[in-house]
């Protein structure tokens, strides 16, 4: 990796070796996912009951999100302190303790080691030494924060990372709180994909407003996201987080024809796009990316979080959790479920993204000496009040280079 240097053009280029270098991925796990970051792990509603837990992943590390009997949330490593086995044999569960199936080391939901069978030996023989200190052998605990029903965690100490509000900054917090406004959330369901591409390509995709008009015929034709809608591209001060915003307008015949427009595409089943404005402002689409691995999706009335888990240089898992609000009436739940047809691995919109990411990885992985040309919107890494810029992708890599020492 020390031989690698960024192209001299700087922010308008992304060298293709970032998508295929295994040493770089190892360093990303350490510096980013195990570093001073806040990583999405769950919606609080997924571990609503005391005693409930969810097994998930941050980067390459298995973690368990628990709610103890006093209602407090914990996140601990899914790795027994004894000999390193993972403890959870299912993705969700409910229990008073976390017990490793191998030697039955038993932990509280906060990770404290509660008991080791045969600790005292049998008939005076064997067992652990007298001075064995259980408090030094618990499940490693992560720092945890929750904001408006969304749970984040990270490795290292609290002093090593900003409080969540500062980590996002005021602009990103505004958009986050627009969807997560304190109302109780209602889970609608999960979807999972393994996309055969480097994880950063997914982040780039959601920071790239241009492709929405050129790739997604469905979005353009139905006005759900168009370059000629009122639009904005915003970042936080570091460039690591961003939002793409679009405000749907009626697609009338005098509107500029964009590349993706299909005049024949009409919906017989109009209930798919029975959209009701439900948030402040007239923005109908807000796609937020939060470093290092979360996408928050508000597309009309379909809401989801998408968690990115890198698996290899050329593969990442995308875990979607769709949600609404506990106060949604039957009609709103129905709307959300119908509009979910736009999303996920079969989605009218998102299907295209997984497929082009496959093609993108196939191209870039074979040519590490090449580089992407990002000159839409010049070389700016500033916010824009339009959707014809690659500024958010440049901003992302500016921060990435700082963190990775590139």
């Amino acid at each position: 990796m020390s031989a690698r240097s960024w192209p001299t053009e700087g922010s308008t280029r992304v060298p293709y070796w970032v998508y295929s270098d295994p040493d770089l991925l190892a360093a990303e796990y350490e510096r980013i996912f195990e570093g001073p970051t806040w990583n999405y792990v769950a919606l609080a509603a997924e571990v609503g009951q005391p005693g409930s837990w969810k097994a998930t992943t941050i980067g390459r590390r298995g973690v368990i999100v628990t709610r103890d009997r006093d209602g407090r949330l914990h996140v601990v490593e899914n790795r027994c302190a004894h000999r390193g086995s993972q403890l959870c044999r299912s993705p969700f569960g409910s229990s008073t303790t976390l017990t490793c199936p191998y030697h039955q080391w038993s932990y509280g939901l906060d990770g404290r080691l509660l008991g080791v069978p045969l600790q005292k030996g049998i008939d005076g023989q064997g067992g652990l030494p007298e001075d064995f200190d259980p408090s030094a052998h618990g499940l490693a605990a992560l720092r945890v924060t929750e904001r408006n029903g969304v749970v984040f965690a990270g490795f290292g100490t609290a002093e090593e990372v900003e409080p969540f509000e500062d980590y996002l900054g005021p602009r990103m917090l505004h958009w986050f709180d627009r969807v997560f406004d304190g109302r109780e959330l209602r889970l609608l369901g999960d979807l999972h994909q393994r996309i055969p591409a480097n994880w950063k390509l997914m982040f780039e995709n959601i920071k790239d407003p241009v492709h929405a008009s050129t790739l997604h015929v469905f979005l353009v034709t139905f006005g759900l996201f168009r370059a000629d809608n009122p639009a904005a591209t915003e970042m936080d001060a570091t460039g690591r987080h961003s939002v793409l915003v679009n405000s749907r307008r009626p697609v009338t015949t005098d509107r500029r024809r964009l590349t993706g427009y299909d005049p024949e595409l009409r919906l017989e089943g109009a209930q798919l796009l029975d959209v009701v404005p439900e948030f402040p402002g007239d923005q109908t689409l807000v796609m937020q990316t939060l470093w290092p691995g979360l996408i928050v999706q508000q597309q009309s009335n379909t809401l989801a979080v998408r968690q990115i888990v890198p698996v290899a240089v050329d593969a990442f898992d995308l875990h979607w959790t769709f949600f609404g609000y506990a106060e949604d009436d039957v009609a709103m739940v129905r709307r959300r479920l119908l509009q979910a047809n736009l999303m996920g691995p079969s989605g009218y919109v998102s299907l295209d993204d997984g497929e082009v990411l496959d093609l993108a990885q196939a191209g870039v992985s074979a040519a590490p000496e090449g580089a992407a040309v990002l000159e839409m919107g010049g070389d700016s890494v500033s916010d824009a009040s339009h959707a014809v810029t690659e500024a958010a992708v440049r901003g992302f890599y500016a921060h990435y280079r700082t963190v990775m020492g590139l």
Partner: protein
Amino acid sequence: MTASPSLREAVEALYWRYTEAIDEGPFSAWPECFTDDGVYRLVQRANLDRGLPLATLWCEGRAMMRDRVYALEHANVFLDRRVRHVVGPASIDEAAMTARANVAVYETVGLRPTALVAVGQYRDVLAPDGTGGVLLQERLAVNEAELVPNSLVFPV
């Protein structure tokens, strides 16, 4: 479960038409396996078991199914692929007019190794078609392959 030979034949014929529409085409024949107000839902098993209502794909009525056919043929962008449904024998409840059958879907994209893209079970509600055959009033396709290898382009 036993069913009269005529119903069994009708169900077999329907199930064959269904998979042929998707695997061999024309895809426009897929909605015609349903009643006009028929419902198709592709759901992940884990969501079903957790009592969560999300469907991966939900078509309410033939109209939404025709929209899905049009979008896949004219709007969506994906690598060319072939899919092949392998459907097991149906278990039919004649009194309730329901049926179930196991299903696996294999997908081949170019020269890549063929992959299992979905596996699970059809849970169907049948309706007579008025000429001795049956149509789908409802098809719930339950997919137990939770981690989708990128895309599930075609209905299961």
